């Protein structure tokens, strides 16, 4: 709760210098006065809030570790798939497999072989 005070009765000498003629001046004086304990508690609360803000920022950076781990897991999985596909490809093109395939079975061995040389 505030109350207006007649500054003409209560202003200080400094205010008197700044105060000009025909100028209304008022000063608000709160009825509620905070003592030293309240000040301490308020400061402690502000420090706690700052600390929480700091913690959230630090936690945010550590979350990147999970994203990196997730991406790395996916990359490893894709590389493993690629590797296994290469193995499967090699197996399908193996000489023994080709020789025993139905395509090779339908081929005939040539009776004579001539080589074209330069």
């Amino acid at each position, binding site marked *: 709760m505030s109350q207006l005070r007649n500054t003409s009765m209560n202003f200080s000498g400094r205010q008197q210098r700044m105060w000009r003629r025909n100028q209304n001046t008022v000063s608000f004086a709160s009825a509620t006065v905070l003592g030293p304990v309240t000040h301490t508690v308020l400061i402690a609360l502000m420090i706690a809030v700052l600390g929480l803000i700091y913690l959230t920022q*630090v936690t945010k*950076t*550590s979350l*990147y*570790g*999970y994203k*990196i*781990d997730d991406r790395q897991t996916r990359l490893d999985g894709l590389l*493993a*798939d690629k*590797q*296994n596909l*290469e*193995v499967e490809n*090699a*197996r399908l*093109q*193996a*000489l*023994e497999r080709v020789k025993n395939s139905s395509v090779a079975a339908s081929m005939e061995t040539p009776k004579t072989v001539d080589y074209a040389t330069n």
Partner: protein
Amino acid sequence: MSRTRILGVGLLVMVAIFVVRLFYIQVIKHDFYETEAYKSQVTKFTIQPKRGQVYAMDGHDTTPLVLNESVYTVFADPQEVKDPDKIARTMRRIAGGNVLSGFEENLTSSKLRYVVMARQVSRAQAELIKRENLSGVGLQEAHRRVYPEGQLGAQMLGFVDSEGKGQYGLEGFLDKRLTGTPGQLQAVTDVRRIPLTIGSGDVRQAAHDGDDLVLSIDRNIQAQAEQVLKAGLDKAHATKGSMLVMDPQTGAVMAMANFPTYDPAKYNEVTDYSVFQNSIVSSPYEAGSVLKTLTMGAGIDSGAVSANSTYNNTGKVQVDDTTISNVEEDPIFPNTTMTDVLQYSLNTGRRDR
């Protein structure tokens, strides 16, 4: 002294004790507790390198002879397992041929923390197991050596044993090059051992994968050499033999065949360990008169002699203080041809020309 004052002094003393203790822990013993905290938070990971792969030539292209394949070991932590019957059924359904016998009994053990249920499970099977979200079940990735051409060039290639070490052949001789260098990751981790991006003391050293090898061996020539060698041994009723094919212009080895042979992927089924040896390089062989064919070939190739070139064969020849004579009984006549030299294995023919 009033009781209030006594209480106040008592509280002050207690607070002072707390302050002194906190000062001791946080300031004086700061380094010690920081080290202890670091030890429990930081985990060291070894990043395994990929083993190098081996390729041969197929004409002008390369074709793989030795590759790596991802396989998985499926394990369970009995303390975390909630439904052992479901786990057993799932494992038999998905990884049937790879499951170890008797693992179901260990799933209910109250003492064990690690039970291997299946080994060498393929990636596709591992993905199916992972999708089941079985509590207490984990997968451990490993790499297995794959030989798509089967027994082709087995002694030349060698194999990798269960500890990942190359044995015999190229795998053994170039094991260090093929293995590579492991990397290291040291970072603050969470309770699931996932590295977090905090902490300035992280150590990240990438692994150096092993070198891939491209051989001068031609796959087709190698296959044909092995076929011819086998046929030749059968014809001669021999039990063991080797064949080496080289490019005479460059000296490049194009085929290196040995018989009997084995499958490098099933090295553990071999009973006679001598079959692992590549006799061409590991068994000393005194060539003797066989070398005459090389000398004669070089002479003909260089134009020094021809098949019909002749010399005067006296049965022996003097070189400084050494007398070189023919070992076998030879027909001594003046116009001995180069063909005679090979036919009768005449040492004097080698010297004179």
